């Protein structure tokens, strides 16, 4: 245990030292450095930075755990969070880069010639980004308290300080180079344990292939078939076919995540850092290479972690693990409260089943259709977030691998937090202050303002991480719903419809957001306060069975529909705006992203 702690300190603090060194080397000297890293980042570098920017604590820690327990249903996250890059590469990034401005609200202002539109965009951006940051800050606190056994608040404080140093000093420039380093740390931390585990279970070290291979125990059974058998024998749904609320819901969920991804401002901003339209298209490709590396490993991590967990609890059929003989990792996670056991039948052994009642029941095996007897479930809590973090310990991997996972989780959380902080601070210092309130701000003062705003944003994020508001659990749905129903349609119509006018786009944005928020609130509670949901969070009340998390795509449809109706009534955009859109669509030199 002491050895593990030492390794973890070494891994965490050597990566932090690396981030500081990069921050000092890549200090920002101008607003162009601060907002778009001077516009001289190569597509390969940008792709890697987008990978780190995009893959947050949710991708690194939570996603494989979600897949482990949802099985096939978890595919919505895999397709949704990667398919959005196809949309970015073809529908948004190249044209927005051609236009050449610093921020997303600034693009909206130019295209829709309206300060109101700019303010609406700033508001959407801040709400979406702040809700996202809370999750990153919690991830930092949890990683510190679990792996280094320091107080949650102190861990959070250290994380805030590290981000403050390199984000405030370096702006986009410092963040970009730090994100490249963080990507490398993150991908090693994710794939090395996966390679070990895949090799242990199947003899094939490549996780993507291991998942489709036979087990190495000499049985000749495919890993996925074995997993299906093990879980259905305990009354769970079959792993490889378990649905998530029906095909229509999965369809809507996937679309919502795709267009939400394409509409997240902190990701779009990264495309302003490359020198040309061609480089913007290429960055999206490289970004997906680096993201895909983690996302194609994740299903293997999920399935193998589930199988290892099942095998630990029931090594051979009917011979369950005796609680008193449970392994060390089990005890460690029990201490955190994320894993909980209750000996319901008093036999001193652990049963992990689908049966949530206190009595033994008979049910139907989802795969064979035969009747099975299922004992009450005694693993009363298995938090899905522990799967990635506990995975190396469950598989008995060496301590340095566990230490690496801790450093990787921190890299994932810090890199995303930095990107979000920059999106927030630039929208305030550049869009609200320079753009609307104090247009005669000098460049030097704007840079200073950017740094001050970012410091305040870090403090606010830290405060929210320490005292997460009641609605924090539901915020991911809100952030994606917001981006999908407001920002993505506004940007896409701005490029693909020359005639789209400011009035119509604002009407579309407001109704898209409005209906999405209404739907989320009516099922989840107003601002997620329990008891205020007037329709109840239950399947039968859902519109066409679509869950609130999946509603962003309906919001986007409403946005498109309203905008086109209003456009017919109020008339098209003025000629000089249509001219600007035509220019945006053409290739050729684009000036380095500039200001004015």
């Amino acid at each position, binding site marked *: 245990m002491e050895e593990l702690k030492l390794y973890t300190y070494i891994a965490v603090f050597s990566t932090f030292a690396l981030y500081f060194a990069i921050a000092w080397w890549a200090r920002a000297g101008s607003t162009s450095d601060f907002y778009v890293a001077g516009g001289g980042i190569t597509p390969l570098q940008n792709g890697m930075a987008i990978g780190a920017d995009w893959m947050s604590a949710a991708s690194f820690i939570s996603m494989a755990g979600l897949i482990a327990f949802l099985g096939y249903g978890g595919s919505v996250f895999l397709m949704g969070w990667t398919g959005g890059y196809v949309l970015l590469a073809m529908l948004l990034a190249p044209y927005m880069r051609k236009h050449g401005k610093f921020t997303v609200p600034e693009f909206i202002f130019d295209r829709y010639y309206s300060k109101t539109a700019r303010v609406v965009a700033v508001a959407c951006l801040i709400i979406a980004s702040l809700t996202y940051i809370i999750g990153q800050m919690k991830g930092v606190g949890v990683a510190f308290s679990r792996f280094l056994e320091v107080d949650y608040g102190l861990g959070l404080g250290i994380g805030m300080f590290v981000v403050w140093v390199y984000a405030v000093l370096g702006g986009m420039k410092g963040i970009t180079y730090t994100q490249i380093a963080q990507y490398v740390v993150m991908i090693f931390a994710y794939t090395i344990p996966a390679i070990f585990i895949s090799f242990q279970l199947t003899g094939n070290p490549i996780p993507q292939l291991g998942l489709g291979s036979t087990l190495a125990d000499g049985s000749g059974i495919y890993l996925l078939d074995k997993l299906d058998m093990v879980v259905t024998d305990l009354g769970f749904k079959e792993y490889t076919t378990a649905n998530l609320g029906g095909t229509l819901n999965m369809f809507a969920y996937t679309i919502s995540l795709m267009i939400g991804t394409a509409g997240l401002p902190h990701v779009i901003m990264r495309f302003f850092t490359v020198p040309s339209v*061609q480089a913007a298209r290429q960055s999206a490709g490289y970004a997906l290479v680096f993201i895909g590396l983690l996302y194609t490993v994740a299903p293997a991590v999920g399935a193998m972690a589930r199988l290892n967990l099942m095998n630990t609890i029931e090594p051979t059929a009917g011979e369950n693990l005796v609680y008193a003989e449970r392994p060390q990792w089990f005890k460690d996670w029990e201490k955190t409260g994320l894993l909980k056991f209750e000996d319901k039948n008093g036999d001193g052994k652990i049963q992990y089943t689908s049966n949530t009642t206190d009595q033994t029941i008979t049910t139907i095996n989802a795969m064979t259709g035969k009747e099975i007897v299922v004992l009450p479930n005694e693993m009363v809590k298995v938090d899905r977030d522990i799967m990635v973090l506990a995975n190396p310990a469950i598989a008995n991997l060496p301590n340095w691998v566990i230490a690496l996972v801790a450093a990787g989780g921190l890299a994932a959380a810090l890199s995303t937090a930095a990107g979000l902080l920059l999106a927030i601070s630039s929208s305030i210092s550049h869009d609200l202050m320079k753009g609307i309130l104090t247009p005669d701000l000098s460049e030097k003062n704007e840079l200073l303002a950017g740094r001050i705003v970012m410091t305040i944003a870090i403090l606010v994020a830290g405060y929210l991480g320490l005292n997460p508001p009641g609605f924090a659990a539901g915020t991911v749905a809100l952030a994606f719903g917001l981006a999908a129903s407001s920002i993505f349609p506004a940007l896409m119509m701005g490029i693909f419809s020359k005639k789209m006018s400011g009035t119509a786009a604002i009407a579309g944005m407001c109704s898209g957001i409005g209906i999405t928020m209404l739907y989320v609130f009516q099922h989840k509670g107003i601002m997620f306060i329990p008891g205020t949901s007037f329709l109840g969070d239950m399947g039968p009340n859902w519109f066409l069975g679509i869950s609130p998390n999946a509603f962003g795509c309906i919001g986007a449809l409403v946005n498109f529909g309203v905008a086109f109706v209003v456009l017919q009534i109020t008339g098209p955009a003025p000629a000089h705006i249509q001219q600007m859109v035509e220019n945006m669509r053409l290739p050729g030199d684009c000036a380095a992203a500039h200001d004015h």
Partner: protein
Amino acid sequence: MENKETYWSENIRIISICLAIWFVVSFGFGLILVEPLNAIHLGGYKLGFWFAQQGAIYAFLVLIFWYGHKMNELDKKYDEGNK
């Protein structure tokens, strides 16, 4: 001779092809047709399950790079036409 209109309509045509494939590999093979495809096996993977958790991502990658390649060619043609 390339002009603004043909450049843009060619871009729209390439995007339409890409997005049709994007739709088929993810929503088509991974969701709508998942059950019939699951009858076919790819090693230990059921094919529909493979598309949903692996194949769609590989296809997205090919699409983005192919789009970038086609557009670079088109950009070159447009630049030459306007010299």
